[in-house]
């Protein structure tokens, strides 16, 4: 019996040495004369244990990690003899960090071979689409609406309503566009699912296509993700070969074609109308809404544009039914959210769980605090446009409305942890700088305001008329918030104002003259 060894090909695992480990395993197996088969998978998301490798045993897959190339010989020994090893983590599925999760979207990620359509189908893939094909458009729309799924790209708009609008629109052509621009710092769930379970994204998009009557789809992937581009292209090819893309999908009367397009390093192209402009071959400048993309989208045609994770949630909803999905979550946030723990964190990675878990649980308990061992001071949730939360707000439950009520956003579910060495003036300045660099230039508050914001915070840092300049920054933030066309200019005030509000001590130290006078 050949030993089956699983090594992730996920970019995170590769960045910490997974490819070197594959070479080392091949070498050891050859010298030992024991045949092995190496399967490259996605990542299970326990990133502090990457590279995490697994071996198939009669009791299930046994995991080891984090493995370095020097460990491979002894790990191999342990695998072959089923003996102990310092890096042995036991049965992978039983690892507590994994067991605590509710994996609806990421169930297969890290488990299957992402290049193999057969493997995908053997693990329940395409069940959702098969059911969708038997249901018809109206019933699918009812299911997606009843699931309560809200777009995972940030704004949280109900997916069912969006699809219905496109389904009802009359046009000679309609499009499905997958927003895989994932430019937010601290987020990598889109990348992981594209690299670890690409057929899931294809299945979700195909379901959208048959529901609304679209015949062509595009996946717009940022250029910073070459591995995801490669994985999606390989999967599209395999799906075509297997009859799941092209004419007569799964033997039906529906036809749907899919193409990957690569971005060119512009954060604003994640904004949906800017993305459409970019897909059309133009500068990624935000369009005013209305008209909505659902009516007037790509090349002027009705278009469904959704985030990667929104599409990836669809197959489960159709295979298991809307209720099975909606039963998870709290309030108007239904189902699960793949939460991404990043930055200065001991146990960073992807944790999929129902909405409602608190920020403190995520950071302290699941994330295990900082890796520097210093106290957690600030946590930015929701990417560069998200607010910085102090410890005093750690009781906030992960829920769209609960975060909004505290002047924050969950965005794409990224959490970036900072320890007590963070200088919040620098973070506030960075937020403005980022907006200045990435602004599409269409509106003045964003284009000019962000540049003035950098200068003014700079002055505060240099101790120039601190009180007046702080007031000026707040005023500027208000102008940006209410005068910007899109969320880049409109939400940059969130990180800036939250830093000012919750970490005021960093900005306005008691003037030395006052201290002397006391």
């Amino acid at each position: 019996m050949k030993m089956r060894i699983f090594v992730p090909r996920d970019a995170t695992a590769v960045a910490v040495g997974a490819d070197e480990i594959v070479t080392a395993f091949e070498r050891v197996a050859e010298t030992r004369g024991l045949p092995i088969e190496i399967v490259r998978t996605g990542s299970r998301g326990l990133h502090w244990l990457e590279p995490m490798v697994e071996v198939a045993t009669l009791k299930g897959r046994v995991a080891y990690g984090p493995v370095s190339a020097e460990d491979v010989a002894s790990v191999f020994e342990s695998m072959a003899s089923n003996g102990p090893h310092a890096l042995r983590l036991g049965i992978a599925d039983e690892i507590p960090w994994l067991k605590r999760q509710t994996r609806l979207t990421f169930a297969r990620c890290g488990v299957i071979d992402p290049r193999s359509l057969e493997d995908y189908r053997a693990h329940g893939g395409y069940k959702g689409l098969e059911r969708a094909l038997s249901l018809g458009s109206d019933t699918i729309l009812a299911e997606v609406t009843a699931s309560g799924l809200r777009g995972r790209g940030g704004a949280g708009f109900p997916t069912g309503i969006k699809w219905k609008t496109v389904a009802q629109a009359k046009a000679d052509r309609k499009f499905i566009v997958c927003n895989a621009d994932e430019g937010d710092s601290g987020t990598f769930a889109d990348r992981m699912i594209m690299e670890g379970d690409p057929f899931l994204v294809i299945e979700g998009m195909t379901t959208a296509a048959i529901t609304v009557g679209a015949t062509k789809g595009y996946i717009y992937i940022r250029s910073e993700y070459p591995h995801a581009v490669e994985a999606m292209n390989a999967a599209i090819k395999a799906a075509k070969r297997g009859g799941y893309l092209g004419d007569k999908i799964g033997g039906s009367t529906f036809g749907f074609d899919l193409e990957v397009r690569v971005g060119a390093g512009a954060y604003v192209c994640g904004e949906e109308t800017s993305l459409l402009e970019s897909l059309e071959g133009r500068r990624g400048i935000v369009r005013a809404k209305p008209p909505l993309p659902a009516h007037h989208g790509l090349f002027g045609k009705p278009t469904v544009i959704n985030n990667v994770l929104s599409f990836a949630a669809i197959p489960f909803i159709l295979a298991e039914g809307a209720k099975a999905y909606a039963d998870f979550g709290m309030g108007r946030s239904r189902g699960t959210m793949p939460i991404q723990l990043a930055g200065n964190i001991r146990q960073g990675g992807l944790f999929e769980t129902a909405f409602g878990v608190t920020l403190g649980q995520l950071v302290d308990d699941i994330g295990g605090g900082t890796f520097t061992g210093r106290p957690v001071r600030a946590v930015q949730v929701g990417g560069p446009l998200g607010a910085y939360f102090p410890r005093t707000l750690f009781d906030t439950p992960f829920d769209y409305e609960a975060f909004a009520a505290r002047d924050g956003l969950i965005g794409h579910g990224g959490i970036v942890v900072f320890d007590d060495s963070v200088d919040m003036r620098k973070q506030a300045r960075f937020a403005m700088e980022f907006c200045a660099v990435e602004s599409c230039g269409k509106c003045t508050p964003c284009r000019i305001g962000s540049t003035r914001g950098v200068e003014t915070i700079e002055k505060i840092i240099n101790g120039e008329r601190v009180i007046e300049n702080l007031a000026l920054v707040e005023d500027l933030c208000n102008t940006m918030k209410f005068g910007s066309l899109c969320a880049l200019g409109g939400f940059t005030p969130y990180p800036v104002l939250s830093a000012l509000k919750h970490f005021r001590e960093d900005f306005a130290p008691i003037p030395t003259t006052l201290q002397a006078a006391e």
Partner: protein
Amino acid sequence: MTAVYEPSCEPSYEPWDETRGAEIIAEHAGQEGATLVILHALQEAFGYVPEAAIPMVAQALNLSRAEVYGVFTFYHDFRHKPAGRHVLKLCRAEACQAAGGDALAARAEAMLGVSLGNTTADDRVTLEPIYCLGLCSTAPSAMLDGRLVGRLDEKRLDALVAEAQR
């Protein structure tokens, strides 16, 4: 055919050649909204987008030169001139900042004697900022000619810089 975008570890580019450029443009011009696809393909072949290619693209897509030039300059990825022999990108976004990325970026600048966004005088290394590689859980992160590196620390950075300088 879709543009194949593969990370290449040993960048090697062709010198600009009009016939070859025209060929590349023709290969993709039939796609809807092909501007970015073509600019990527040109850069993939030549290492940058030669000035001379802009009017060619405009003609093939029935656009004005200004439009194509506008697209070319809007996106951070497209180069006006060839990069150094190696390109070292350091992530400057928040998760990497939180994990000590600022100090590492300053160290790389000092070691190479150039600031982010520039190429060393001997044309060997281009040092660039990048805003998130999606490796934020093993931050800080870097990319050397398409190869990803996570859990960057001083030792790993020094090795990367040395490799880039070779």
